């Protein structure tokens, strides 16, 4: 398979390049797809080392291809990790583009090398990777030294130095104690809400609204047409009168009863509308 042909570049050069690539492919193909990398920089370093054979003759196209190839095959499901790799891929392509354009000139009049940042990053990473190996060596050496676990005998742990009462009570006098006492008591008083603390218990309503509704409905059903006064006279307490009145108002609102009054201050006649309907 010749990948170059698929890219559709022009004729003669194809043949040449293809032959070279064929040779290079066997060297540059990523052997083990199962290798896990710590991150994009790690992968990049790996690819770079693998391709060390002919440094100046390997175009960025190849590296980017391999990089993209690899991440396509990566079986990681961790989107966080994947996204890091993709960011690097985009960065590589971005740098590639910048290399094609004339270099930007910064405020000092110097040309900015688009690769500079990446070199810096790679350098820093390389440094710490190297140091981690050094540290690991040190860890191996230090592993030969053993220590005792912490162990405090019970008496030592529980030891409390004797209490010096003189020092402890040096500042305390009787008048101070009294002051403190008064202060605390005052605080207790201040805490009590003068109004709310006098509230008594919460009591249940003497008259149950729902029961009244049932009563009035029953009354209407049996009387069909009656005077308001007659209904009220049947009630036993002020509370009952009030509740009954409220029920009548509600029924008026719901359209269950009709109200008539001939003259002012005349008795009010209540007619059931529900009955009229059927």
């Amino acid at each position, binding site marked *: 398979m010749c990948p170059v042909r698929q890219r559709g570049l022009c004729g003669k050069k194809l043949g040449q390049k293809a032959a070279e690539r064929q040779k290079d492919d066997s060297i540059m193909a990523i052997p083990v797809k199962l290798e896990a990398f*710590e*991150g*994009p*920089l790690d992968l*990049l*370093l790996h690819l*770079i080392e693998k*391709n060390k054979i002919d*440094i*100046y003759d*390997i*175009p*960025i*196209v190849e*590296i*980017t291809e391999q990089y993209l190839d690899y991440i396509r095959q990566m079986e990681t499901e961790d989107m*966080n*990790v994947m996204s*890091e790799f993709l960011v690097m891929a985009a960065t*590589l392509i971005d*740098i*590639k583009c910048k*290399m*094609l354009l004339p270099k930007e000139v910064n405020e000092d009049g110097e040309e900015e090398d688009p*690769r500079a940042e*990446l*070199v*810096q*990053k*790679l*350098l*820093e*990473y*390389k*440094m*710490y*990777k*190297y*140091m*981690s*190996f*050094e*540290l*690991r060596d*040190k*860890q191996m*050496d*230090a*592993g*030969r*030294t*053993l*220590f*005792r*676990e*912490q*162990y*405090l*005998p019970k008496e*030592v742990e529980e030891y409390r130095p004797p209490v010096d009462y003189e020092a402890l009570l040096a500042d305390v006098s009787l008048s101070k104690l009294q002051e403190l006492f008064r202060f605390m008591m005052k605080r207790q008083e201040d805490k009590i809400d003068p109004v709310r603390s006098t509230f008594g218990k919460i009591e249940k309503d003497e008259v149950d609204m729902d029961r009244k509704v049932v009563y009035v409905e029953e009354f209407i059903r049996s009387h069909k047409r009656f005077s308001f006064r007659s209904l009220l006279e049947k009630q036993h307490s002020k509370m009952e009168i009030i509740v009954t009145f409220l029920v009548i108002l509600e029924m008026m609102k719901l359209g269950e009863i009709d109200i008539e009054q001939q003259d002012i201050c005349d008795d009010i006649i209540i007619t059931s509308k529900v009955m009229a309907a059927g």
Partner: protein
Amino acid sequence: MEKRKAEAVMEAILFTMGESVEIARLAETIEESVKDTKAILSKMKERYEQENRGITLIELEESVQLCTKPEMYEYLIKIAKTPKKYVLTDTLMETLSIIAYKQPVTRLEIERIRGVSCDHAVNRLLEFNLITEVGRLDAPGRPLLFGTTEEFLRSFGVKSLDELPELNAVQIEEFKQQAEAEVQMQLDI
């Protein structure tokens, strides 16, 4: 306190405690200045090293601790049940080395250098007590800062952070050239 007696007292304390003891506390106990105490401890260590002893003193920042000599290790593993040394993976080692050299450092900075998220690594290192929170950065979000612990010093056999292996200038230059060549190669069209 008389020098020899002071040594004996400190030796007894260090043995009992097992753990590291702050030099300041030892100084209080033997009623000497910190400077003098350090001098006495130095002498003690010399004696341990010269005489045919199996144990010696180790200094960790401002504390001391008794420990076995490395030469004794082969004999010890036969008898004592040595605690399982946890294996640090490459990821953890890299993260740890960044923290060790750049402390105090935030998660974000670590991630910037490594190029990947470091949450898992940082949490593991915290569990192993090799790193700890050392404060917060005065910046939006007030992110946590991390640094190494005494346990780190012990595990890597360094007296203090100054003793960490250094990257010398020649090496840095070498790496720099390598990095440049690598990037050049990648991007050469």
